[in-house]
């Protein structure tokens, strides 16, 4: 197993380098940079030109993009993510706590998504073609079709403005509630559909009929013999959906003012603060790759037929 994990990590390396290269290329094509974005319209043109030139030199922005790329790569390998031009402090300092915030948000959202989506899918499968199933799947379709930002605003409107259960700009743990609920409910929709179809497929298998023939009740059959296989299918989708979840978090964080890497990422792009942008993209890619690796490891743990070392 450890050999498998090592192999997977090595395979992730070219992916990360590729992502970095791509963002550097985009950067090279964009006509403005952090410095010009910062001074735009603030000082007279001559003063600006001087200051801009000085700062560009200091941050290496006057170099061609491939030189910047190699320099950046070498720094990252030494654990140095550079300095944010706009914030005037090391990127790693700013990103650390924000990444924890984002992980908290996506983690809680994922738990909400699993906690609501999986049981909903299982009940739908067990009560296939009843009003319960049709109702749950209609709600699910709504969840899949609804954009996260719209759903978030809707929740703010209902819970903060109409019902006034929580403040529009809450503090502390309450601040997590609405963004996590928004992301979680949106995530619950695809999970419920996957859980439903996987469970329906498994319930048709021979070993389920055999379990029924032994006098196991429907509840035991589902919980003991159909659920583990269903969870395998759900896990695969969680791995694939993790990117969506992170992407969704970018938007949700902006709407709810949650200080995570997403909210920072959107600002960083507006600032053309490439050291910051780069680090956020790197860390998101790393999280995505880790999530999928984790799913594959869990796979081997749940399904005895999966053996990665062979």
């Amino acid at each position, binding site marked *: 197993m450890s050999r498998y994990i090592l192999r997977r990590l090595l395979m992730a390396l070219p992916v990360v380098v590729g992502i970095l290269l791509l963002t550097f290329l985009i950067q090279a094509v964009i006509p403005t940079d952090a410095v010009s974005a910062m001074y735009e319209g603030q000082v007279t043109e001559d003063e600006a030109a001087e200051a801009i030139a000085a700062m560009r030199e200091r941050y290496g922005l006057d170099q061609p993009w491939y030189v910047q790329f190699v320099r950046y790569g070498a720094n990252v390998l030494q654990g140095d993510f550079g300095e944010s031009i706009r914030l005037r402090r090391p990127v790693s300092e700013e990103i650390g706590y924000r990444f924890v915030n984002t992980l908290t948000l996506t983690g809680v959202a994922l738990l909400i998504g699993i906690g609501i989506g999986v049981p909903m899918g299982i009940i739908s499968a067990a009560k296939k073609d009843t009003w319960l199933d049709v109702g749950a799947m209609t709600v699910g379709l709504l969840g899949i079709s609804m954009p996260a930002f719209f759903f978030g605003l809707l929740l703010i409107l209902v819970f903060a403005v109409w019902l006034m259960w929580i403040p529009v700009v809450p503090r502390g743990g309450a601040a997590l509630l609405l963004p996590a609920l928004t992301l979680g409910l949106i995530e619950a929709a695809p999970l419920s559909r996957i859980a439903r179809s996987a469970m329906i497929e498994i319930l048709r298998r021979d070993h389920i009929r055999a379990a029924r023939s032994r006098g196991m009740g429907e509840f035991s059959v589902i919980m003991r013999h159909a659920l583990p*296989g269903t969870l395998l299918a759900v896990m695969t989708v969680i791995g694939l959906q993790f990117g969506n979840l992170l992407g969704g978090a970018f938007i949700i964080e902006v709407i709810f003012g949650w200080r995570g890497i997403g909210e920072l990422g959107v600002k960083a792009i507006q600032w053309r603060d490439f050291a910051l942008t780069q680090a956020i993209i790197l860390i998101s890619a790393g999280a995505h790759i880790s999530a999928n690796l984790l799913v594959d490891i869990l796979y081997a743990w749940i399904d005895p037929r999966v053996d990665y070392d062979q």
Partner: protein
Amino acid sequence: MLEVRGLRTQFGTGAGAVRAVNGVDLAINPGEVLGIVGESGCGKTVLALSILRLIDAPGRIVAGQVLFEGTDVLAMRPRALTALRGRDIAMIFQQPKASLDPLMRIGSQIAEPLRLRGGRSRAEAWREAVELLGAVGIPNPEEKARAYPHEISGGQAQRVMIAIALALRPRLLIADEPTTALDVTVQAQILELLRERCRVLGTALVLVTHDIGVVAQMADRVAVMYAGRVVENGKVADILGQPAHPYTRGLLRSAPVMGAVQARLREIPGGIPDLTRPLSGCAFAPRCEARQQAGAARCDSQAPPSFLPRAGWQARCWLQAGAPQAQPAPEAWA
């Protein structure tokens, strides 16, 4: 002990419905081995599944009774049905490996009914599961109990299925083509194991098979099925020695049977009838070599009733028209 009366199971509804089991009457006595034989598509498996109400949609039991000790299984509430399954009547299937949960250790699967239904503790159930594995002839049962289904062979999987099915010592075991998916070399061992375990536990056995040779070897009585009906039913010694129905004769001629004096093997010409059409006469008439002899007009227009060539022997064929007719199934179960 078990009596099936007028059982009809069909798939779909209306004009396109397939009448897979089309009015079957059967009885099984305690401790006996009943063979149900017929070619593919004659309704044997559907009959076996119908007895335990394991038919999935779009299949559905539309008429009849399945009386176990006088109680109609088809009318049971879900709770009574689950209580019956596994404890009174158990079943094993054609595909043993697919019938085991791939994500669960073999020992846990045997221990499961003991724990959930037999009230054993986890440790007791596991110990008993290991014993049962040994009893069905699995070497190193303690080690094998920890194996997963993909790690064992088909023959071993069927042994495990037998161990699970007999764990709660049911009165009746229904074995649906238990050796069809197995290597020829393993088939005889599994059949012998079935016979031995059922004898030790006093369990009656319904053996569904397309192999009349297996019936000759294993069964006390045999029911021959054709197009969803039992066409001949009686003691194996009677029927295999002197079949009363032309279909049984054809089956016997088409397969090698141990101990029987046979000429060259011959197939039965033609194929099974379309089960979506209602039958106007004898279902076998179009393929029957004795049609002229039995009275072709009658064969085509009128389904033959059950005649009794001898006591305990029934045949649905106009050739036996001289014999007394079986009474329609009596209303009260004796």
